C-alpha cells in the first residue's frame, strides 16, 4: 500500500493539471458569460431535437447561466414557433421552402439514408420504383430485379425513427403499406441483420453504413439515382436520399441565439453529430 501513495500523488497532480488544461480555453469565458445568460427555447423537428439537446447540454456546461430548453413537435411547429416568436430558435429537418424566405436557416448537419444489401447479393442498383415495389410487397423475389432466385427479406425500421420518416417521405410510402419481414431498432441492428442474410434489403443512416462497410462488414450501399451513397455525397447535398437539419430564426440572430447557433455549427460539436449518425458539415 505504501508504494502506492506516490502514484496516487502523481495521479492527483495529473488530474489537477488536466483540470487546469481544460479550463484554459474557457479562460475568456467569464467575460463572455457575463453577457451570455438567460433561457433559450428551441422547438421543432424530433429528428433534430436529440442532436440539439446534446449540443444544448454542452453549451450549458460552457455557459452556466444559460438554460437551453428543447421541445419537439415536428418541423412545421419549429417553423411556426420561430415565425411567431414562441421559440427563440426553430428546428426543421428539411430545407426551407420558398415561402419561408422570411426566415433565416442555419444547417447544423445533414441526415442521409442508404439502402443496403448483403455484399453477396449480385444486384448492383435499384430504381426508386423498384425500392417502392419491394417495400410495399409488389416485388417479393430477387429474380424480378435481376438477382438470384430467392425471396426478398424486407428489413424496416421501428415507428418513430427519423430514418424511417426520411425513407417513407422520399419514396412516398405510407407507413401501414410497408410489408416488412423484420423490424429493427437502431442502425447497428439493421446492419447486422442485412450482413447476416444474403437476401435482405434494409436502410440505415449513411454514416453508420459507410463505417461498417469500411470495417469489413459484408454489406453494400446502393447508389440512388446514380449517386454513390457516401458521407461525401450527403455532405455536398448531391445524394438524393438526404436532407439538411436546420436551425431557424425569424430575425438575424443576435446575442444568445447567435452564440448558440455559432456553437452548433462549430467543429466542437462534430463528435455529437457523428454519434447520432448524422453527417457534420464543414464550417
Amino acid at each position, binding site marked *: 500500500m505504501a508504494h502506492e501513495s506516490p502514484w496516487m500523488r502523481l495521479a492527483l497532480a495529473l488530474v489537477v493539471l488536466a483540470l487546469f488544461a481544460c479550463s484554459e480555453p474557457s479562460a475568456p469565458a467569464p467575460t463572455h458569460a457575463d453577457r451570455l445568460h438567460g433561457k433559450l427555447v428551441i422547438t421543432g423537428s424530433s429528428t433534430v431535437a436529440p442532436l440539439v439537446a446534446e449540443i444544448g447540454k454542452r453549451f450549458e456546461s460552457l455557459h452556466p447561466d444559460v438554460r437551453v430548453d428543447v421541445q*419537439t413537435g415536428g418541423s412545421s411547429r419549429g417553423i411556426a414557433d420561430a415565425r411567431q416568436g414562441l421559440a427563440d430558435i426553430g428546428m426543421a429537418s428539411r430545407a426551407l421552402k420558398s415561402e419561408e424566405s422570411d426566415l433565416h436557416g442555419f444547417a447544423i448537419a445533414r441526415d442521409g439514408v442508404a439502402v443496403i444489401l448483403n455484399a453477396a447479393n449480385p444486384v448492383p442498383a435499384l430504381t426508386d420504383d423498384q425500392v417502392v415495389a419491394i417495400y410495399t410487397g409488389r416485388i417479393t423475389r430477387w429474380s424480378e430485379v435481376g438477382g438470384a432466385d430467392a425471396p426478398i427479406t424486407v428489413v424496416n425500421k421501428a415507428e418513430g425513427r427519423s430514418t424511417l420518416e426520411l425513407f417513407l417521405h422520399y419514396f412516398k410510402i405510407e407507413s401501414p403499406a410497408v410489408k416488412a419481414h423484420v423490424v429493427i*431498432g437502431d442502425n447497428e441492428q439493421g446492419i447486422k441483420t442485412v450482413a447476416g442474410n444474403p437476401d435482405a434489403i434494409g436502410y440505415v443512416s449513411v454514416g453508420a453504413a459507410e463505417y461498417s462497410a469500411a470495417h469489413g462488414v459484408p454489406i453494400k450501399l446502393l447508389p440512388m439515382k446514380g449517386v454513390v451513397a457516401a458521407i461525401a455525397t450527403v455532405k455536398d447535398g448531391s445524394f438524393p436520399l438526404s436532407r439538411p437539419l436546420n436551425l431557424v430564426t425569424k430575425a438575424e440572430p443576435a446575442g444568445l441565439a447567435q452564440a448558440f447557433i455559432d456553437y452548433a455549427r462549430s467543429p466542437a460539436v462534430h463528435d455529437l453529430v457523428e454519434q447520432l449518425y448524422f453527417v457534420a458539415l464543414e464550417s
Partner: protein
Amino acid sequence: MTSSSSSTLLRWNPDRVLAAGLRLCAAGAAAIALLIAAFLAVESWPALRHLGIVRFVTDPSWHPAADAAAGTFNLLPMVWGTLCATAGAVLLATPLGVLSALFIHHYAARPVARLHRRMIELLAGIPSVVYGFWGLVVLVPLIRAVQPPGASLLAGILILTLMILPTIALMADAALAAIPAAQLRAAAALGLSRGRTVVGVVLPAARSGLLTGVVLGTGRAIGETMAVLMVCGNVVQTPDSLFDPVRTLAANIALEMAYAMGDHRSALFVSGLVLLAMIAALIGIAARLRPQAVAHA
C-alpha cells in the same frame, strides 16, 4: 437455559432493532413495486384517456402517432406474440429442465452430475444479449434455410427456451435435493425400481418446487427483451405459423421508447401495464396452484 433470563434483556433490544430494520426493508421492497405500478399507471393515463381501453384491442393495426387521433394502437397482436413465445418456451424448457434435474439426482454418476450442474449454472450466467447475438448469427440463418425470413416466432421460442431452461433446471434441482432421504429409502425398501421411484415418489413430493421453477421461468420469458428483440423479427402481426416474425410487448417498448412522444409514448406505458398485468395474473395462478400441490403431497 437458566442463564437465558438474564441475557434476554440484552438480546431483546437488538432483536427489536432487527425486526424494525427488516420491516423497513420489506416495506421498502413492497413500496418499490407499488411505486413502479403507480408510475406506469400515471404515464399510461393520457393514452387511456385519449384512446380508451377499447381502441387498444379494436384498432386495425399498430401504427402509433404522437397524436391519438392520427395513429392506430392495436396491442393484441403483440399480446399474442408474447403469449405464444412464452408458452412455447415454457413447454419446451419444463420437460428439459425437470429431466435434467432428475438426471443429476437419480441417474448420473457423481462426476457427471457435478459437471452437468456446472454447465447448467453457466447457462444461467450468460447475459441475455449474448443469447440474442448467438441467435441472430447462428439460429436465424439456420431457420432461414428451412423457411425465410428466419427471424421468427420459432427463433424467439428457442432462444427463450435456452434462457429459462437453467432457471427451471436449477429450481427443480433444489426441489429434488429437498426430498427427505427417508422417503427415498422407504421406496427402496419397498423394492421400487428407479423409474417407479421417480414417477411415484420423487415427482409428487417435489411438485411444489417444480411449479415454482416453472413460474419463475415463465416470468423471465414474458419480460425478456433484448434477445427476443434480436431474433423475433419484430413485425407487428398475429403469428399464423412458427416461421412468422412476431413482436413481443417488451420488445415493442424497447424498440420505440427512445423516439416516442405524446400519446405514442403513453401507449408504450400501457403495453408496460399489460405486461405487469400478465405477470400479476401468472403469480395469482401460481399462488392458487401451490396449496393444492402441498395438500396432495
